[in-house]
Protein backbone atom coordinates (compact mmCIF):
# COMPACT_ATOMS: atom_id res chain seq x y z
CA UNK A 1 0.00 0.00 0.00
CA UNK A 2 1.51 3.31 -1.12
CA UNK A 3 -0.68 6.24 -0.08
CA UNK A 4 -0.04 9.48 -1.95
CA UNK A 5 -1.39 12.87 -0.92
CA UNK A 6 -2.26 14.61 -4.18
CA UNK A 7 -3.03 18.17 -3.06
CA UNK A 8 -0.43 19.69 -0.77
CA UNK A 9 0.53 23.36 -0.97
CA UNK A 10 3.41 23.52 1.51
CA UNK A 11 6.86 25.06 1.05
CA UNK A 12 8.53 23.46 4.07
CA UNK A 13 8.14 20.55 6.48
CA UNK A 14 8.40 17.76 3.91
CA UNK A 15 9.51 15.47 6.75
CA UNK A 16 5.99 15.51 8.24
CA UNK A 17 4.13 13.68 5.41
CA UNK A 18 6.84 11.01 5.51
CA UNK A 19 6.34 10.59 9.28
CA UNK A 20 2.57 10.37 8.72
CA UNK A 21 2.97 7.34 6.46
CA UNK A 22 2.76 8.83 2.97
CA UNK A 23 4.95 7.49 0.18
CA UNK A 24 4.54 10.55 -2.00
CA UNK A 25 2.94 13.97 -2.29
CA UNK A 26 2.00 16.19 -5.20
CA UNK A 27 3.16 19.63 -4.19
CA UNK A 28 1.34 22.65 -5.59
CA UNK A 29 3.42 25.27 -3.80
CA UNK A 30 4.81 28.33 -5.57
CA UNK A 31 8.25 26.72 -5.71
CA UNK A 32 7.56 23.04 -6.43
CA UNK A 33 10.46 20.65 -5.89
CA UNK A 34 11.22 17.10 -6.93
CA UNK A 35 13.30 16.43 -3.85
CA UNK A 36 13.08 13.15 -1.96
CA UNK A 37 12.85 13.07 1.82
CA UNK A 38 13.99 9.57 2.78
CA UNK A 39 11.48 7.44 0.85
CA UNK A 40 8.94 10.25 0.29
CA UNK A 41 8.67 11.36 -3.31
CA UNK A 42 7.63 14.93 -4.03
CA UNK A 43 5.97 15.36 -7.43
CA UNK A 44 5.78 18.90 -8.81
CA UNK A 45 2.46 20.48 -9.59
CA UNK A 46 1.25 23.86 -10.73
CA UNK A 47 -1.95 25.66 -9.75
CA UNK A 48 -3.86 27.60 -12.34
CA UNK A 49 -6.25 30.07 -10.76
CA UNK A 50 -8.58 31.69 -13.24
CA UNK A 51 -11.79 33.66 -13.08
CA UNK A 52 -12.90 33.13 -16.69
CA UNK A 53 -12.49 30.25 -19.18
CA UNK A 54 -10.54 32.59 -21.46
CA UNK A 55 -8.01 33.36 -18.72
CA UNK A 56 -7.72 29.61 -18.06
CA UNK A 57 -6.84 28.88 -21.72
CA UNK A 58 -4.24 31.67 -21.73
CA UNK A 59 -2.60 30.35 -18.56
CA UNK A 60 -2.69 26.74 -19.83
CA UNK A 61 -0.78 27.77 -22.96
CA UNK A 62 2.10 28.91 -20.75
CA UNK A 63 2.42 25.66 -18.73
CA UNK A 64 5.13 23.12 -19.58
CA UNK A 65 4.33 19.41 -19.63
CA UNK A 66 6.61 18.45 -16.74
CA UNK A 67 4.17 19.35 -13.98
CA UNK A 68 0.79 18.12 -12.81
CA UNK A 69 -1.74 20.81 -13.67
CA UNK A 70 -4.42 21.63 -11.09
CA UNK A 71 -7.20 24.16 -11.64
CA UNK A 72 -8.96 26.38 -9.12
CA UNK A 73 -11.83 28.62 -10.08
CA UNK A 74 -15.58 29.18 -10.30
CA UNK A 75 -18.01 26.78 -11.96
CA UNK A 76 -17.54 28.02 -15.54
CA UNK A 77 -13.75 27.67 -15.20
CA UNK A 78 -14.10 24.14 -13.81
CA UNK A 79 -16.43 23.25 -16.67
CA UNK A 80 -13.92 24.55 -19.23
CA UNK A 81 -11.11 22.75 -17.40
CA UNK A 82 -12.68 19.30 -17.64
CA UNK A 83 -12.90 19.72 -21.41
CA UNK A 84 -9.18 20.41 -21.73
CA UNK A 85 -6.78 17.48 -21.83
CA UNK A 86 -3.90 19.59 -20.50
CA UNK A 87 -5.64 19.76 -17.12
CA UNK A 88 -4.93 16.86 -14.77
CA UNK A 89 -7.10 17.62 -11.78
CA UNK A 90 -9.64 20.02 -10.36
CA UNK A 91 -8.35 21.19 -6.99
CA UNK A 92 -10.55 21.43 -3.92
CA UNK A 93 -11.04 24.60 -1.90
CA UNK A 94 -13.74 26.36 0.12
CA UNK A 95 -16.82 27.24 -1.96
CA UNK A 96 -15.76 25.10 -4.92
CA UNK A 97 -18.57 24.69 -7.42
CA UNK A 98 -18.97 21.47 -9.38
CA UNK A 99 -22.21 20.42 -11.00
CA UNK A 100 -23.61 17.22 -12.45
CA UNK A 101 -22.57 18.02 -16.05
CA UNK A 102 -19.00 18.90 -15.07
CA UNK A 103 -18.55 15.68 -13.13
CA UNK A 104 -20.01 13.64 -15.98
CA UNK A 105 -17.61 15.30 -18.43
CA UNK A 106 -14.68 14.74 -16.02
CA UNK A 107 -15.51 11.05 -16.01
CA UNK A 108 -15.50 10.95 -19.84
CA UNK A 109 -12.22 12.87 -20.19
CA UNK A 110 -10.62 11.11 -17.19
CA UNK A 111 -9.86 14.38 -15.37
CA UNK A 112 -9.31 13.80 -11.65
CA UNK A 113 -11.44 15.53 -9.01
CA UNK A 114 -9.77 16.33 -5.70
CA UNK A 115 -11.72 15.94 -2.45
CA UNK A 116 -9.86 17.46 0.46
CA UNK A 117 -10.36 17.03 4.19
CA UNK A 118 -9.06 20.54 4.89
CA UNK A 119 -12.60 21.88 4.72
CA UNK A 120 -13.47 19.72 7.74
CA UNK A 121 -10.44 20.81 9.72
CA UNK A 122 -10.32 24.58 9.26
CA UNK A 123 -14.04 25.36 8.96
CA UNK A 124 -16.45 25.37 11.86
CA UNK A 125 -20.18 25.73 12.38
CA UNK A 126 -22.51 26.49 9.49
CA UNK A 127 -19.68 26.84 6.98
CA UNK A 128 -18.54 23.29 7.72
CA UNK A 129 -22.15 22.05 7.45
CA UNK A 130 -22.48 23.63 3.98
CA UNK A 131 -19.15 22.20 2.80
CA UNK A 132 -20.05 18.69 4.02
CA UNK A 133 -23.45 18.95 2.32
CA UNK A 134 -21.89 20.06 -1.00
CA UNK A 135 -19.15 17.45 -0.94
CA UNK A 136 -21.61 14.64 -0.12
CA UNK A 137 -23.55 15.56 -3.24
CA UNK A 138 -20.35 15.62 -5.32
CA UNK A 139 -19.41 12.17 -3.97
CA UNK A 140 -22.83 10.79 -4.97
CA UNK A 141 -22.31 11.93 -8.59
CA UNK A 142 -18.70 10.69 -8.60
CA UNK A 143 -19.97 7.27 -7.57
CA UNK A 144 -22.66 7.30 -10.26
CA UNK A 145 -20.32 8.11 -13.17
CA UNK A 146 -17.21 6.44 -11.75
CA UNK A 147 -15.38 9.76 -12.06
CA UNK A 148 -11.68 9.49 -11.13
CA UNK A 149 -11.17 11.20 -7.80
CA UNK A 150 -8.37 11.80 -5.32
CA UNK A 151 -8.71 11.96 -1.57
CA UNK A 152 -6.33 14.65 -0.39
CA UNK A 153 -5.43 16.69 2.66
CA UNK A 154 -5.44 20.01 0.77
CA UNK A 155 -2.97 21.28 3.35
CA UNK A 156 -1.47 24.72 2.94
CA UNK A 157 0.70 24.34 6.03
CA UNK A 158 2.25 21.13 7.43
CA UNK A 159 -0.02 21.21 10.52
CA UNK A 160 -3.05 20.62 8.29
CA UNK A 161 -1.70 17.27 7.12
CA UNK A 162 -3.15 14.11 8.66
CA UNK A 163 -1.97 10.47 8.71
CA UNK A 164 -3.55 8.56 5.87
CA UNK A 165 -5.62 6.36 8.24
CA UNK A 166 -7.15 9.54 9.70
CA UNK A 167 -7.84 10.85 6.19
CA UNK A 168 -9.82 7.65 5.59
CA UNK A 169 -11.71 8.14 8.88
CA UNK A 170 -12.50 11.79 8.11
CA UNK A 171 -13.70 10.98 4.60
CA UNK A 172 -16.57 8.98 6.13
CA UNK A 173 -18.19 12.37 6.91
CA UNK A 174 -18.41 12.88 3.12
CA UNK A 175 -20.13 9.52 2.68
CA UNK A 176 -16.99 7.83 1.36
CA UNK A 177 -16.59 4.24 2.52
CA UNK A 178 -13.21 2.68 3.32
CA UNK A 179 -12.84 0.88 -0.01
CA UNK A 180 -13.53 4.03 -2.00
CA UNK A 181 -11.23 6.07 0.27
CA UNK A 182 -8.34 3.66 -0.24
CA UNK A 183 -8.92 3.88 -3.99
CA UNK A 184 -8.70 7.68 -3.78
CA UNK A 185 -5.50 7.51 -1.75
CA UNK A 186 -3.57 4.74 -3.47
CA UNK A 187 -4.84 3.48 -6.86
CA UNK A 188 -6.01 6.74 -8.43
CA UNK A 189 -2.93 8.80 -7.42
CA UNK A 190 -0.67 6.07 -8.85
CA UNK A 191 -2.66 6.23 -12.12
CA UNK A 192 -2.32 10.02 -12.27
CA UNK A 193 1.44 9.90 -11.68
CA UNK A 194 1.88 7.11 -14.26
CA UNK A 195 -0.18 9.10 -16.77
CA UNK A 196 1.98 12.17 -16.26
CA UNK A 197 5.49 10.86 -15.69
CA UNK A 198 5.70 7.35 -17.20
CA UNK A 199 7.04 7.59 -20.78
CA UNK A 200 5.62 4.16 -21.68
CA UNK A 201 2.05 5.22 -20.82
CA UNK A 202 -0.20 5.79 -23.85
CA UNK A 203 -3.81 5.82 -22.61
CA UNK A 204 -5.60 3.95 -19.80
CA UNK A 205 -5.03 0.24 -20.39
CA UNK A 206 -2.38 0.70 -23.09
CA UNK A 207 1.34 0.60 -22.28
CA UNK A 208 4.20 0.84 -24.74
CA UNK A 209 6.12 -2.40 -24.09
CA UNK A 210 9.06 -2.02 -26.46
CA UNK A 211 10.25 0.72 -28.76
CA UNK A 212 13.22 0.63 -31.11
Amino acid at each position, binding site marked *: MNPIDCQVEIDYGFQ*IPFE*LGFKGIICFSSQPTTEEVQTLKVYPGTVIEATTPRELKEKLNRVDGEKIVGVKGPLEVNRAAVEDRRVDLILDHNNRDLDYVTLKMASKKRIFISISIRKLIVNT*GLKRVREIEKTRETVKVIRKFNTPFLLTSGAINP*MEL*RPFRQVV*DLSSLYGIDEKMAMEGLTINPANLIRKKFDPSYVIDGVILEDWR
Partner: protein
Amino acid sequence: MKNAPPSFRYRKRYIVFKFISPEWVDKKDVARALWRNFLTLYGDTGAAESQMWLEYFDGTYGIVKCAHTFTEKVKITLSTLHKISGMDVLPVILGVTGTLKKAKKYMETNGG
Protein backbone atom coordinates in the same frame (compact mmCIF):
# COMPACT_ATOMS: atom_id res chain seq x y z
CA MET B 1 -27.10 4.08 42.95
CA LYS B 2 -25.50 0.66 43.27
CA ASN B 3 -22.94 -0.23 40.62
CA ALA B 4 -24.47 -1.77 37.49
CA PRO B 5 -23.66 -5.43 36.80
CA PRO B 6 -20.88 -6.01 34.21
CA SER B 7 -23.36 -6.87 31.44
CA PHE B 8 -25.03 -3.45 31.90
CA ARG B 9 -21.83 -1.43 31.80
CA TYR B 10 -20.73 0.07 28.50
CA ARG B 11 -17.71 -1.44 26.77
CA LYS B 12 -14.81 0.98 26.80
CA ARG B 13 -12.14 1.83 24.28
CA TYR B 14 -9.01 3.86 24.93
CA ILE B 15 -7.69 5.93 22.04
CA VAL B 16 -3.98 6.71 22.32
CA PHE B 17 -2.87 9.86 20.50
CA LYS B 18 -0.10 12.39 20.33
CA PHE B 19 0.08 16.02 19.24
CA ILE B 20 2.76 17.37 16.95
CA SER B 21 2.94 21.02 17.98
CA PRO B 22 5.61 23.68 18.48
CA GLU B 23 4.85 23.91 22.21
CA TRP B 24 3.27 21.87 25.00
CA VAL B 25 -0.50 21.95 25.20
CA ASP B 26 -2.53 22.30 28.39
CA LYS B 27 -4.78 19.36 29.36
CA LYS B 28 -7.76 21.59 30.17
CA ASP B 29 -7.53 23.29 26.77
CA VAL B 30 -7.40 19.92 24.99
CA ALA B 31 -10.44 18.64 26.89
CA ARG B 32 -12.36 21.83 26.13
CA ALA B 33 -11.48 21.73 22.43
CA LEU B 34 -12.38 18.04 22.24
CA TRP B 35 -15.81 18.60 23.80
CA ARG B 36 -16.53 21.66 21.69
CA ASN B 37 -15.64 19.79 18.52
CA PHE B 38 -17.65 16.70 19.48
CA LEU B 39 -20.71 18.81 20.29
CA THR B 40 -20.62 20.66 16.96
CA LEU B 41 -20.17 17.42 15.01
CA TYR B 42 -22.53 15.04 16.83
CA GLY B 43 -24.70 17.16 19.15
CA ASP B 44 -25.72 16.85 22.77
CA THR B 45 -27.24 13.37 22.55
CA GLY B 46 -24.19 12.02 20.76
CA ALA B 47 -21.91 13.54 23.40
CA ALA B 48 -24.02 12.03 26.20
CA GLU B 49 -23.92 8.55 24.67
CA SER B 50 -20.24 8.66 23.78
CA GLN B 51 -19.01 8.52 27.42
CA MET B 52 -15.99 10.44 26.17
CA TRP B 53 -13.38 11.42 28.74
CA LEU B 54 -9.82 12.69 28.46
CA GLU B 55 -8.20 10.09 30.71
CA TYR B 56 -4.59 11.23 30.49
CA PHE B 57 -2.61 13.99 28.81
CA ASP B 58 0.99 14.98 29.44
CA GLY B 59 1.38 17.87 27.01
CA THR B 60 2.14 15.69 23.97
CA TYR B 61 0.73 12.19 24.48
CA GLY B 62 -2.80 11.47 25.63
CA ILE B 63 -5.51 8.85 26.13
CA VAL B 64 -9.23 9.40 25.49
CA LYS B 65 -11.77 6.95 26.91
CA CYS B 66 -15.08 6.37 25.07
CA ALA B 67 -17.84 3.83 24.51
CA HIS B 68 -16.81 1.20 21.95
CA THR B 69 -19.65 2.18 19.60
CA PHE B 70 -18.28 5.73 19.42
CA THR B 71 -14.64 4.90 18.65
CA GLU B 72 -14.83 6.08 15.03
CA LYS B 73 -16.64 9.28 15.98
CA VAL B 74 -14.13 10.16 18.68
CA LYS B 75 -11.29 9.43 16.24
CA ILE B 76 -12.89 11.82 13.73
CA THR B 77 -13.30 14.47 16.46
CA LEU B 78 -9.65 14.12 17.42
CA SER B 79 -8.58 14.36 13.77
CA THR B 80 -10.51 17.60 13.24
CA LEU B 81 -8.66 19.34 16.09
CA HIS B 82 -6.64 22.05 14.43
CA LYS B 83 -6.02 24.90 16.82
CA ILE B 84 -5.89 24.68 20.60
CA SER B 85 -5.77 28.02 22.45
CA GLY B 86 -4.41 29.71 19.33
CA MET B 87 -1.66 27.14 18.70
CA ASP B 88 -1.53 24.88 15.62
CA VAL B 89 -1.61 21.18 16.47
CA LEU B 90 -1.40 18.04 14.38
CA PRO B 91 -3.14 15.14 16.15
CA VAL B 92 -1.82 11.67 15.34
CA ILE B 93 -3.83 8.65 16.51
CA LEU B 94 -1.43 5.92 17.58
CA GLY B 95 -3.91 3.16 18.34
CA VAL B 96 -7.03 1.90 20.08
CA THR B 97 -7.01 -0.49 23.03
CA GLY B 98 -9.53 -2.09 25.36
CA THR B 99 -7.79 -1.45 28.68
CA LEU B 100 -6.05 1.51 30.25
CA LYS B 101 -3.05 -0.65 31.14
CA LYS B 102 -2.51 -1.63 27.51
CA ALA B 103 -3.08 1.96 26.38
CA LYS B 104 -0.29 3.17 28.68
CA LYS B 105 1.98 0.38 27.45
CA TYR B 106 1.15 1.37 23.87
CA MET B 107 2.03 4.95 24.64
CA GLU B 108 5.38 3.96 26.17
CA THR B 109 6.34 1.86 23.14
CA ASN B 110 5.53 4.82 20.87
CA GLY B 111 7.82 7.18 22.77
CA GLY B 112 5.39 8.64 25.35
